[in-house]
């Protein structure tokens, strides 16, 4: 993919720029971690004057990380909810998008451009508009504040990405192998499970990881449609951050909310490298 070229080395400016961007992106995490471990960190100290561990023995009540790991913080509940909702949304999204992607990649039919237009709408319309209107409908349907409602809502922003990924893979696939399997007498189910699905696997993994990622990052739809009854990591974080100050326990919860993203980053980089995000 890469060809060696005359200009294939970084210029001094580029070297500086890469370092500066890395500092801009990662830098803020340092004070976040320090804050989560601080007991007293008054202005203008650059480092806390008293640390969490020093105070831990003396304090009666739970401090920072003790609080984060205690049931009172609801971190565990939020993490479990985030994973359940993300997994359910991913599986449903795959189930819905696989047949649709197949049709969109291989067939020409009347109304195809209308389908494609509808598929791009959730990316273009403001999330707040989608959330508020869905809330109105879900209240009417009795889905507001339920897991089902949130999972369905998470499908809307994830479907466009999933369909795109799977359509691209289907287009690159051709139909020869499936045809040969059919000639050899395989049933349609066998063809799908033994031939099509294995060939689709890179796209399925990429699409699933991306869908799970988007779902775990969604705040507004969960916040609106959960009606405060269902908390996920982003909505829990919102309740800690919305006051506009970050204390030690809020910093700890922010660190926790970063972890799923780091795990997914390691997974995506490992399994799909650059390919997964091509075309976004």
């Amino acid at each position, binding site marked *: 993919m890469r060809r060696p*070229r*005359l*200009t294939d080395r970084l210029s001094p400016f*580029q070297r500086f720029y*890469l370092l500066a961007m*890395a500092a801009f992106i*990662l830098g*803020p*995490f340092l*004070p976040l971690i320090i*804050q989560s471990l601080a007991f007293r960190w008054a202005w*203008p100290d*650059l480092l806390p004057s008293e640390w969490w561990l020093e105070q831990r023995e003396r304090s009666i009540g739970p401090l920072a990380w003790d609080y984060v790991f205690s049931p009172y913080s609801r971190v565990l509940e939020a993490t479990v909810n985030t994973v359940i909702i993300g997994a359910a949304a991913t599986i449903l999204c795959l189930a*819905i998008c696989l047949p649709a992607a197949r*049709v969109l990649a*291989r*067939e*020409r*039919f009347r109304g195809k451009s209308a389908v494609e237009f*509808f598929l791009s709408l*959730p*990316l*273009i*319309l*403001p*999330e*707040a*508009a*989608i*959330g*508020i*209107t*869905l*809330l*109105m*409908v879900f209240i009417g349907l009795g889905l507001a504040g339920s897991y089902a409602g949130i999972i369905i809502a998470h*499908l*809307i922003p994830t479907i466009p990405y999933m369909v795109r990924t799977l359509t691209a893979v289907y*287009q690159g696939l*051709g139909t*020869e192998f499936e*045809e040969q399997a*059919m*000639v050899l007498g395989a049933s349609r189910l066998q063809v799908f499970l033994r031939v099509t699905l294995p060939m689709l696997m890179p796209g399925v993994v990429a699409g699933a990881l991306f869908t799970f990622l988007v779902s*775990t*990052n969604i*705040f507004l739809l969960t916040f609106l449609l959960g009606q405060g009854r269902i908390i996920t990591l*982003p909505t829990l*974080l919102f309740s800690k951050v919305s006051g*506009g*100050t*970050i204390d030690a326990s*809020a*910093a700890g919860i*922010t660190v926790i909310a*970063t972890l799923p993203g*780091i795990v997914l980053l390691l997974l995506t980089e490992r399994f799909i490298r650059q390919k997964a*995000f*091509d075309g*976004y």
Partner: protein
Amino acid sequence: MSSPIPPPNSAPRLFQPAQAAGRRPALGLALTLTPIAFVLVLLFGGAMLLAVLQSLGFAPWFGVNTFPSLTYFKALWASQFFWISVGLTLYYATASTMIALVLAIPLALALTKAFPGRGLYDYIYKLPLMIPYLVGIALAVLMLGNGGILSRLAAYVGLIDDPGQFPAILKTHYGWGIITVYVWKQTPFMTLAIYAVLLGVDRNTEEAAAVLGASPRAIFFRVTLPQILPGIVSSSLICFAFNMGAFEAPLILGGGFPDTLPVIAWRYFNDADYTLQLQGMAAVVSMGIISGVLLFAYLAAYRRYEMMIGRV
């Protein structure tokens, strides 16, 4: 009604099973698309339609039915604060998209080069892409607040000696906090999109231009930029649309009244006076219209440009 599209690079077929390549009956086709249509057309499309109807005065469940009337739009649009909100929403969305773009282009170009730590850098720059906006908001509060790290650093070097002297970055209508969060979160997304395009284009044209005596500046504006334009347009379109509808950053880091459109819509929707929900729907629909018109104009301008340079 359906006809097979020959897949690229496929050998001529001797045998064509009815199921594999598109002689599927219309009914089967419709059934395949039913689940996705249910979610997107019925649920999502239905919600959008209902929002438009409600903003036009159709809400029999509240005992309100003046459909069709523009009362709610008129009430909303008559307020000067609404237009300030529109201006603020557009300002945050545009400024952050443009800054992120300016940061992303050199980053994507640098990433095409080989350098030690290239693999690690992939992890570093993609991190913001993976985590919720609220993490970015928390980081902004820690870094940019009056008692934050920048303020402490300013005190350390002796610029200020009281947190109150630190210039307000958060909670102002200049929105530097909001813009910083969007830029931090979206620069990686744009970088990725532009980088993906860069991998696909023939970079030898840059060298050819250099050999022919073009300055680095001319090479960038005349060769590289037009090549990566599709990535720029698609990613800035998605980011701009997202920023128009973003809620949590303006709510937490914004300057308060007048709020951005999504926050206004949410406040109306949560008001104890439920008839204000119709006003809220008018705000939602206005937001959709403004965003839609701008994105459409942007795409149309881009299409014209593509036609002009003869790429389409």
